[in-house]
């Protein structure tokens, strides 16, 4: 089990009602972690085409997670 800090933005923050949480998880990748978080926060499932970052670097959904990583879940972006 790893300790991971999870942060939610924009629509995700509004759906979960929280900006961040620290979880103890067996998830090996952001994709697994997102699935796990979606069990607790059903609203997360409403959106796809999301982006993920780890420790302030854009990442992909299959990167291996490490202890104390900070994982940022971004709902679909809409700049401009």
């Amino acid at each position, binding site marked *: 089990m790893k300790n991971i800090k999870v942060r939610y*933005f*924009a*629509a995700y923050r*509004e759906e979960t009602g929280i900006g961040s949480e620290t979880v103890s998880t067996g998830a090996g*990748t*952001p*994709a697994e972690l*997102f*699935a796990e978080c*979606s069990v607790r926060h059903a609203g*997360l*499932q*409403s*959106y*796809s*085409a*999301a*982006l*993920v*970052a780890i420790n*302030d*670097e*854009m990442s*992909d*959904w*299959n990167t291996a997670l490490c202890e104390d990583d900070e994982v*940022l879940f*971004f*709902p*679909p*972006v*809409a*700049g*401009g």
Partner: protein
Amino acid sequence: MKHFEITRQAIDPDAFRKQLLDPSCGAYVQFDGWVRNHNEGQRVLRLEYEVYEPLAVKEGQIIIDEAIERFGVTNACGVHRSGLLELSDVAVVVGVSSPHRDAAFRACRYIIDETKARLPIWKKEYYENGETEWVNCKHCGRHQSPGPEPGSDART
């Protein structure tokens, strides 16, 4: 030189343009994104940008560097607003200077396209009927399968 910025202040497109003036350049292309009074049939009253600034600035700079490298332009800059904006406010400006116009047009287009697809920026629209909506999320929720798609590049 800081090529990509996020700001809570009103953007001045003319001051922005002046920082890119260069006597070796014959061509300058600028894109302004303005707050529009409608979207998908709804009257928009104002909007709000949420920006995750540390990563937006970093990724914005990467996009600028990619454009300079790929199209061989002399210089390029971008600036994007955060916070609450009114109709006709300037939401984003991208400018590119180059000896010739073809590269300037292509680089400018590349930067605004990538900015919209890759930067952690979200837009909430406030409608005349009192509702609000995170732009893009509505469609994703309705028309696509839920959850991230592992292995895809996750761009809308």
